[in-house]
C-alpha cells in the first residue's frame, strides 16, 4: 500500500491550523491578526479541503486507520461543523482577549481528534482520539468571563465534565482490557469475526458494554448523561454550541463502527435498545420542566442520543446509514439553535425561556430561524429532523425492536410540547423588561438563514446526502 498524503489531507490541513494557532498563542498577539479574524476564513476553506479527499479509500498506519465513505462523510461534516462553531465563537463576549488563540486552538484540536476518530478502526487509537477531543474540551469549558473574572458556573461545569469523563474513561479502559483478554485483538475488523453472545464469550460482552459506556458518555446517553445539561448551562453559549454538536458526531461514528459487531438479538444489542428507550424518555420528560434554554437543549441531546440508538440496533446497513444521517441532522439542527442562542444573548448571559419573549419583533430573522430549528428538533416536515427520524423508523421497523420504534414515536409526541414552547415564547409572548438586545447584524442574520436553509433543503431533498450515508453503511455491512 502506497501512502498518499492526499488521502488524509483534511487531517493535515487541520493540523496546520492547530500549529498556526499554537504559534500565535505563544506570542503576545500584538503582531498577528487576531485569531477570530483569520480563522473563520481558513476553517471555511477546510470544508473544500475535506472535499478533495472525498473518495479516498484505504487502510493506513498498520491497519489502524481506515478511509472509507463513512470516515470521509464524517470528516466533511466535522469540517463544516468546525467552520460554523468557529464563526459562532468569533464574536464571543465572554472570552478574554488574550485567551482567544488558545481557545480556538483547543477547538481545532478537538475537531482534529474527532477527524482521527472517524477513521480509527482500532480500539486503542479510537480511545486516544476520543481523549484528544475530550481533553481539549476540558480546557475550553471553564473559559467564561463574566464581569471581568472567571465565571464560577463555568468552572463547576468544567470540573463536572472532567470528573465524569475520568470515570467514563476508566470504565472504557477497564472494559477494553476484558475485550483484549478474551478476544486477543483490538482491531474492529478482527473483532467482527468473534463471537459476541453471552453464552460464548461473557467476558467480552461485559468488556464491550463497559467500553461502549465510554462512548455513551460522549454521546450523553442515559445513564451517562449527568454532565450534559450542567455543562451546557455552565459553559458559555458558544462553547456549549461546540460541545453539544461535534463530539456527538465522533461518538456516533465509533458506535456505528462498533455496531458492525452487533447482530439483533444479542444481549448487548438489547441493552443498547433499552438504554436508548430510557434515554429518550428520560431526556424528554426532564426537558419538559426546564426554564433555561441551554439546559433544555442539554436534555434534548440526551433524548436525541436515544433516537440514534434506534438505527444502531437494527443490525442492517440501512440502520447504520440512518444513524449516520441522523447524526448529521442533529449536528445541523443544534448548530442552528446554538447560533440563534448565541446571537440573541449578545451579552453572553444564559438565556431563560422568558428571554425569548417577543423575539419576532426584536429580531424577526432569528425568531424564524429558531422556529425552523425547533420544528426540526421535533421532527416535523419539511425539515431534516423529519427525514432523519423517518429513515430511522423505516430502517428499524421489523428488525426485532418494534417496541423501540414505538417508544421513539411516543417520545416525539412528548417533545413537541417543549420544542414548540420555544416558538410560543418567541412569537406569542410580549417582551418583558429585562430582555437582551439581539444581534441583528448582517453577519448574524446571514448565518441563521444559511443554517435554516440547510435544515430545510436537506429536509426537502435529502436523497443526495442520504445516498452517501447508505454508501457508508453498505461498506460497513455488505
Amino acid at each position, binding site marked *: 500500500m502506497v501512502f498518499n498524503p492526499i488521502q488524509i489531507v483534511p487531517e493535515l490541513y487541520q493540523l496546520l491550523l492547530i500549529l498556526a494557532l499554537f504559534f500565535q498563542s505563544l506570542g503576545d498577539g500584538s503582531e498577528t491578526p487576531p485569531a477570530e479574524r483569520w480563522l473563520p476564513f481558513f476553517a471555511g476553506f477546510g470544508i473544500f479541503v475535506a472535499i478533495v479527499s472525498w473518495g479516498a479509500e484505504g487502510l493506513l498506519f498498520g491497519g489502524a486507520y481506515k478511509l472509507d465513505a463513512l470516515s470521509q462523510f464524517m470528516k466533511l461534516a466535522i469540517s463544516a461543523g468546525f467552520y460554523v462553531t468557529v464563526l459562532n465563537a468569533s464574536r464571543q463576549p465572554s472570552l478574554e482577549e488574550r485567551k482567544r488563540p488558545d481557545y480556538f486552538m483547543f477547538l481545532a484540536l478537538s475537531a482534529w481528534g474527532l477527524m482521527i476518530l472517524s477513521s480509527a478502526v*482500532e480500539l486503542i487509537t479510537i480511545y486516544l482520539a476520543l481523549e484528544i477531543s475530550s481533553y481539549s474540551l476540558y480546557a475550553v469549558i471553564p473559559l467564561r468571563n463574566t464581569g471581568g473574572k472567571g465565571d464560577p458556573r463555568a468552572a463547576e461545569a468544567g470540573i463536572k465534565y472532567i470528573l465524569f469523563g475520568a470515570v467514563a474513561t476508566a470504565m472504557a479502559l477497564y472494559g477494553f482490557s476484558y475485550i483484549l483478554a478474551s478476544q486477543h485483538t483490538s482491531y474492529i475488523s478482527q473483532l467482527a469475526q468473534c463471537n459476541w453472545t453471552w453464552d460464548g464469550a461473557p467476558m467480552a460482552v461485559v468488556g464491550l458494554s463497559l467500553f461502549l459506556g465510554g462512548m455513551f458518555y460522549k454521546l450523553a446517553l442515559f445513564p451517562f448523561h449527568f454532565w450534559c445539561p450542567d455543562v451546557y448551562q455552565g459553559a458559555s453559549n458558544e462553547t456549549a454550541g461546540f460541545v453539544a454538536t461535534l463530539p456527538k458526531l465522533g461518538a456516533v461514528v465509533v458506535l456505528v463502527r462498533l455496531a458492525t459487531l452487533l447482530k439483533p438479538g444479542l444481549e448487548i444489542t438489547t441493552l443498547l435498545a433499552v438504554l436508548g428507550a430510557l434515554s429518550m424518555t428520560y431526556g424528554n420528560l426532564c426537558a419538559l420542566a426546564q426554564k433555561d434554554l441551554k439546559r433544555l437543549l442539554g436534555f434534548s441531546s440526551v433524548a436525541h442520543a436515544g433516537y440514534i440508538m434506534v438505527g444502531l440496533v437494527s443490525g442492517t446497513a440501512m440502520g447504520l446509514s440512518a444513524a449516520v444521517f441522523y447524526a448529521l441532522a442533529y449536528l445541523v439542527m443544534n448548530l442552528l439553535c446554538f447560533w440563534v442562542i448565541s446571537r440573541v444573548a449578545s451579552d453572553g448571559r444564559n438565556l431563560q425561556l422568558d428571554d425569548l419573549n417577543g423575539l419576532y419583533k426584536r429580531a424577526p430573522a432569528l425568531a424564524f430561524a429558531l422556529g425552523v430549528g425547533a420544528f426540526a428538533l421535533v421532527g416535523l416536515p419539511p425539515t431534516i429532523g423529519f427525514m432523519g427520524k423517518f429513515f430511522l423508523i423505516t430502517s428499524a421497523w421489523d428488525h426485532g425492536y418494534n417496541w423501540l420504534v414505538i417508544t421513539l414515536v411516543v417520545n416525539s409526541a412528548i417533545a413537541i410540547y417543549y420544542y414548540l414552547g420555544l416558538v410560543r415564547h418567541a412569537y406569542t409572548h410580549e417582551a418583558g423588561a429585562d430582555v437582551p438586545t439581539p444581534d441583528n447584524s448582517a453577519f448574524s442574520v446571514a448565518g441563521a438563514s444559511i443554517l435554516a436553509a440547510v435544515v430545510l433543503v436537506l429536509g426537502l431533498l435529502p436523497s443526495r446526502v442520504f445516498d452517501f450515508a447508505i454508501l457508508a453503511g453498505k461498506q460497513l455491512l455488505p
Partner: protein
Amino acid sequence: MENMAKIVFGFYTLIILGGSLVAVGAKSLVRAMVGLIATLLGVAGMYMLLNAQFMALMQILIYVGAVCVLIFFAIMLTRADAGGEEAASAPLRQNLLALTAVLSVGGILGWLVLTRPLATTGVPVEVSIEKLGLGLLGPYGLAFELISVVLLVSMAGAVLLAWERRNGK
C-alpha cells in the same frame, strides 16, 4: 516453583487490596496517597509475576516515581490536614450506596471470572523491549503518536487554565 508463584501472587494481591482500602478509607489525604502507592507497587509486582519486567519497572518509574509525587505535591499545596472538609465521614446512606455499587459490579465480574474462566495461554513469555518498540512504532504507530498529542493538549490546557500573566504584561 508453582507453589512459590501462588504464594507470591497472594502476597501481591494482599498488597493491592490493602493499599486500595487505605487509599479509599484513609482520613488523611497523604495516607490515602501512600495506600495508592502501595497498590501501584503491588500491580508492578503482578507484572513481574507475568514476566513483564519492563512494564513493572515502568510502572514504578512513572506511576510511583512521577505521577504520585506530583499528586503529592498538589496535596501539599492545599490544606490537606485531617480536620479538613474531606476528612468528615460520609453519611450512612452514601456509604451504603457506594457499597452496593461496588458489590454489584464486583459481584458480576467476580462471578464471571470464577465461573467462566478464560483459557490461559500457558506460562507468560517475556517480551523483549525490541519487540515492544517495534510494536509501538509499527502496528500501533498512530496510537503512539496520538499519545504525544494528548500530552500536548493536557499541558497546554493546564497552562491556559492555571497561568496568570503578571499584571499587564
